[in-house]
């Protein structure tokens, strides 16, 4: 049943299946995390909503889901922030012209930014979890008048592991958002908060009926963050988290990303807690 195929008896693949991109810029964020600015060679415009992701293919190595981490209004260059953890992420970060990166997407649903209009918003990020939230921050700031209070809580392992340092500085200096940053372990130069991200909740008071929360980070961090949010009175329908599961296709066809009744790739990756509380935090679901 094995098809023997040579380059000759095949036809050219339609671009929507995999768009070839060049890497225009590589920004070093931390020692192991880089932001790649991709340009689709077909020059077609690229649109996405904050919270969505792409499947990125490194030639001969593999394909992995990576969140869109840039400004949704930027149509020319597509930003992805990639942490090197294995073969594919390593190959992606090290791709240079004339090499290319294959891109499929955008996939997934994104953060409920429309729904949250007129309400307060709290964004809680852990580590690389900030990547899919950065577009949401851009969006809220760009439509600042349409939202109430805006809290941003961010935790990383060490000061060195903080992403987007320039923007963090800017966000901290803004008066129209409350930014709190913490690290698990500081260094001699660090003068900010030390402790896991949930310790920051002491510093804020949320209006439970009027606040939407967007959370992304390691599963254990999200679990405790959800508890804090509930402590402050938020109901599960207002708490949104972004899940991570193994993905091969991104289109709900390969089955790998199942989480209870959901396919994380097409029903998520963003879920409200009341959708998933039956499964979230249970062992090995």
């Amino acid at each position, binding site marked *: 049943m094995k098809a023997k195929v040579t380059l000759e008896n*095949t*036809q050219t693949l339609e671009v929507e299946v995999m768009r*070839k991109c060049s890497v225009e810029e590589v920004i070093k964020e931390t020692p192991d995390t880089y932001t790649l600015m991709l340009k689709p060679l077909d020059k077609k415009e690229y649109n996405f909503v904050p919270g969505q992701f792409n499947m990125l293919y490194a030639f001969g190595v593999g394909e992995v889901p990576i969140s869109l981490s840039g400004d949704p209004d930027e149509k020319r260059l597509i930003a992805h922030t990639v942490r090197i953890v294995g073969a594919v992420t390593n190959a992606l970060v090290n791709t240079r012209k004339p090499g290319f990166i*294959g891109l499929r997407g955008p996939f997934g649903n994104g953060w409920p930014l429309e729904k949250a209009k007129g309400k307060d918003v709290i964004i809680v990020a852990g580590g690389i979890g900030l990547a899919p939230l950065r577009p949401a921050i851009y969006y809220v700031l760009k439509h600042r008048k349409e939202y109430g209070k805006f809290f941003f809580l961010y935790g990383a392992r060490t000061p060195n592991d903080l992403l987007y340092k320039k923007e963090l500085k800017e966000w901290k200096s803004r008066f129209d958002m409350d930014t709190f940053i913490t690290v698990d372990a500081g260094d001699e130069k660090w003068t900010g908060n030390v402790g896991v991200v949930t310790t920051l909740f002491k510093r804020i008071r949320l209006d439970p009926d009027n606040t939407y929360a967007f959370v992304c980070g390691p599963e254990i961090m999200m679990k405790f963050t959800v508890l804090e949010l509930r402590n402050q009175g938020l109901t599960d329908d207002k708490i949104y988290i972004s899940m991570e599961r193994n993905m091969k296709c991104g289109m709900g066809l390969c*089955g790998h990303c*199942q989480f209870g009744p959901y396919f994380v790739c097409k029903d998520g990756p963003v879920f409200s807690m009341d959708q998933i509380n039956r499964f979230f935090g249970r062992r090995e679901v």
Partner: protein
Amino acid sequence: MSSQQKTYFALDAEMFGNIIDVLKDLGYTVYGPTERDGAIVYDVLDSAEQIARGLYDEQSPGRYKLVKKNDKRYFGYVVGPQSPKYVLYPPQHLLFKVRKDGKTFIPQSDGKKIAIVGLRPCDLKAIEILDNVLLKGPYKESVYEALRKDAVFIAVNCVEPGNNCFCTSMNTGPFAQSGYDICITEFLTDRSHVFILDVMTNRGAEVVNRLGCRNATAEELDAVSRLMEEAKNKVRKRLNTENLKDDLYKNIEHPNWNEVGNRCLACGNCTLVCPTCFCSSVFDKSSLSMDVAERWGLWDSCFSIDYSYIHGGSIRQSIMSRYRQWLMHKLATWVDQFGTFGCVGCGRCITWCPVGIDITEEANRVRG
């Protein structure tokens, strides 16, 4: 078999081979049940000669045995280890080739049209479910779509259901309700051996026209109805599907999961013989020269560790959790995903599980 204004045809057994010939003439690659290595498997048929006649299967949990009888029945057995999935969604398939410069190639469909003869009603339902999963969502599975598109199904009603069948519980059999082009009932007595043909589609009609069948007589139709009524009662294995989904959701932490986890081999047999399990994986290849790379798709199973791997470790480390994922998917989460069960009651997973784990028993234990 309801008979409002519908014509049923009759074909004498000696003429049965014509179906295969006609299908071939119409340009189909015909798959049908043949005997290989002690079981009934789908193979490409050159003629009806290759169909396993006079063979009957005995199935029980973890056991399958073919028995030869001295009759000429074409379809004396029920389902074998392969499902139509094997033909319509091949276990391993090339997805694309890509050159170093990014030029990408996908395999071209060779225009092969497939006909499958001898599908059982549960298999038809399984194809319907696969259609639902692979073709009706926001994205289509193109390999399946290409093979499925023009496929013709000649189904066979089950007059002798197997021991592991529980199609009546899943409302999928023992007779076909939909999804076929032609559905056949084999009618064998001491005196006669005929096939009663029920034609559903134009493609089916095209085949039947070329066969030159006569119309079935009223007695024949009566006899067939009786046969099928009896068949229904012969399906003894049951699964109570009432509230099944909710019962399972409630029992996500039931102690029986651990118990079955101790027996389950996590070998994946159940998922690969299952006619609806659709999970697949991919792997990448590259030439030594690094000039061309390929990506292949292949059947995967939720019983493998890699299936749920994310950086840092797999989500489902224990066999228990993998069995639970499987059963919960078949009988609970599938309902939320696609509106039907992911199980058609064909019993394959029970038969082909080397240690004979029975999904109906485990479901009952968990909810009990």
